[in-house]
């Protein structure tokens, strides 16, 4: 895909001059204007563009907020109040940034679920997928660091709980975990020193994310987009140029997404947050209920489902790192779950169990909630480690269309349906 010929024609002397020296417009034209896009993409494929917009919004609002924010333990909370009350449109910028974090995660979860359902992690898209997992990890780190900055009770105690997780390494090498925690904190407790370094890193990581996003897009443009059938583009009729077709569709989806975004910004700005974060951080008072932001809840549930502290930490990090290996854990050659009658149901159950873990992460881990957390945690790992490898081998895929064109226009367009498993029909090239 990346080596498809750009149809760029320099139209002025300057453009010709530049094209011979730095063919950036030729590249952009090839990659973002006449780039071949599968013609059968559904709206789940608009979330890549939406996520790019989310990142841009977070960076722009974040840069402005940083002009007014003071990363000091005695002033951070008040500086946010100044932003809300006295900075021109500060309330708006701050709401967009805070709600934007949640919107970013909603979009990334849909994007990831799309990838899982349509097998977008399978060859030749393994590197694309792995880069995506790295972006997701960076997002989680950035979100966590950012949640520290308002220096409310939930900020302070959230940091305390999460950084303390590293002390579980004391069980491996005595003293190791404790030393790591002291090193992270910059002292013997969470303090203004911690706040200041977290602010620095919170400003840094989004640019790292932007860099990995560039790699992610690059990898995407090398292998091309997957599509709901999971069948590669084989002929010209299978694709449409990115501009204007995909671009127009993406813009429509982006604006619909923005309606939801704006609803939260203007009418429910605090809905996704926690009331305790409007109480200034106080190291001497533990809040009654320490919960992370909603987007971490499934992993928080996994952490607490395991009886041992170190085990919980390993399970929590493992639950994300395992995603790096699914291109090889999935043994099926069929990409799209649409044609995988057994796997499909296990996948639905997986989505359900992640949502359940999110619910359970906000509950006290005892009684039925703890039991449920354990069942869902077991299923989470069993899905990747047992179900994915086995179902891929024993399942008979349902009949698939021969090509994207046939999937869109019906069988008349390019002959009769083909038997299951004959996905990669090389004769159609």
């Amino acid at each position, binding site marked *: 895909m990346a080596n498809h010929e750009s149809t760029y024609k320099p139209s002025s002397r300057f453009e010709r001059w530049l094209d011979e020296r730095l063919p950036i417009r030729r590249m952009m034209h090839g990659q973002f204007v006449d780039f071949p896009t599968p*013609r059968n993409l559904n709206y789940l494929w608009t979330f890549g563009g939406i996520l790019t917009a989310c990142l841009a919004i977070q960076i722009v609002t974040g840069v402005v907020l940083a002009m007014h924010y003071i990363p000091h333990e005695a002033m951070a909370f*008040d500086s946010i*109040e100044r932003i*809300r*009350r006295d900075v021109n449109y500060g*309330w*708006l910028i701050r*709401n967009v940034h805070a709600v934007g974090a949640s919107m970013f995660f909603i979009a990334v979860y849909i994007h990831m679920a799309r990838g899982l359902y349509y097998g977008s992690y399978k060859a030749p898209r393994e590197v694309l997928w792995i880069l995506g997992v790295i972006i997701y990890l960076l997002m989680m780190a950035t979100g966590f660091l950012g949640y520290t900055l308002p220096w409310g009770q939930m900020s302070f*105690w959230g940091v*305390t*709980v999460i950084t*303390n997780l590293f002390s579980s390494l004391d069980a491996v090498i005595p003293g190791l975990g404790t030393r790591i925690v002291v090193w992270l904190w910059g002292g013997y407790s969470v303090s203004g020193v911690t706040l200041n370094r977290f602010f620095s890193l919170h400003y840094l990581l989004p640019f790292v994310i932007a860099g990995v996003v560039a790699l992610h897009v690059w990898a995407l443009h090398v292998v091309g987009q997957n599509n709901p059938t999971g069948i590669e583009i084989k002929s010209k009729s299978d694709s*449409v140029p990115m501009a*204007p*077709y995909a671009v*127009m*569709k993406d*813009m*429509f989806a982006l*604006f*619909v997404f*923005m*309606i939801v975004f*704006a*609803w*939260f*910004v*203007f*009418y*429910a*700005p*605090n*809905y996704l947050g926690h*009331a*305790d974060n*409007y*109480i200034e951080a106080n190291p001497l008072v*533990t*809040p*009654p*209920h*320490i*919960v992370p932001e909603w987007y971490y809840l499934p992993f928080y549930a996994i952490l*607490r489902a395991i009886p041992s*502290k170190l085990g919980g930490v390993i399970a929590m990090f493992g639950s994300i790192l395992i995603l790096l290996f699914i291109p090889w854990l999935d043994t099926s050659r069929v990409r799209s779950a649409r044609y995988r009658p057994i796997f499909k149901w296990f996948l639905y159950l997986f989505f359900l169990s992640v949502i*359940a873990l999110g*619910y359970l992460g*906000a*509950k*006290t*881990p*005892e009684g039925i909630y703890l039991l449920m957390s354990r069942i869902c945690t077991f299923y989470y790992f069993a899905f990747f480690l047992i179900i994915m490898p086995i179902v891929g081998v024993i399942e008979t895929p349902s009949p698939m269309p021969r090509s994207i064109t046939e999937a*869109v*226009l019906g069988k008349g367009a390019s002959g009769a349906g083909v038997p299951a498993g004959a996905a990669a029909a090389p004769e159609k090239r």
Partner: protein
Amino acid sequence: MKRSTALKASAVAAVMLGLTTPVLAAGEAAEIPRQSWTFAGFRGHFDKAQLQRGFQVYKEVCANCHGLKRVRFRNLSEPGGPQFPEESVKALAASWPNKIFDGPNDQGEIATSKGVIIKRPAGLADPILGPHDNEKAARAAFNGALPPDLSVITLARSASHAGTLLQTLVGMPRDIVNGYQEGGADYLYALLTGYANAPADMKLADGMSYNKYFPGNQIAMIAPLQPGLVKYQDGSPTTIEQYAKDVTAFLAWAGDPKLEERKSMGWKVLLYLLITSLLFYAAKKRLWAQVH
């Protein structure tokens, strides 16, 4: 999340941290009923007369113990708030009993020769301070308890309910669509009207009062409101319920002074996004008609 469950969760978190010993709830706090507020929802706005009455309650009752330090006197005359005339706010600030630190003076002293800390009267740009210079002074005056600053109190409290999975699944989208943000106000109103005699089997600690809605049911604040306590000028009823309603509305404004600006900008932004979405949809449909 019910606060009692929340307390148990804190125990877990605390044990996990190995930092504190867990604190357990003494009793179940009652469910917080939802009130109807003028500032709730899509068309929410503050009732100016109510904010003015609410400020009067704050000034005559709450301000004896609680500060409002993130609100400045000038805010009281700004649009979207109680909008008192600027002249009267100036006079109010000048006569506010809790003055502003003004040391060191030109001689470098922070106290007069008689040992009185140097302070000046407040002006429009100054914060509305409570009666105590610092947390220790407040705790010393209140038997160890700290009356919190009320600047963002309605944001810092919530009335989220314990719910089954099903209730959560139904309640969440409903609250999002309604833009329900008044949990803190509901809680505050419930608290102010929730004083009652303790049940016979409950033994209150020294100096504590029974409150139906306070987590653990024992609160250090004595019942602050009594019928007829504040004399309203506009003929509104002088009941505990009315006082609670008015002062809660005032504190909701104090915590979110840009609420009206936010909600009036909101529908314009939404309208713009909606129209643009429809245009994109029409353009997309027409464009793709050539392909499908």
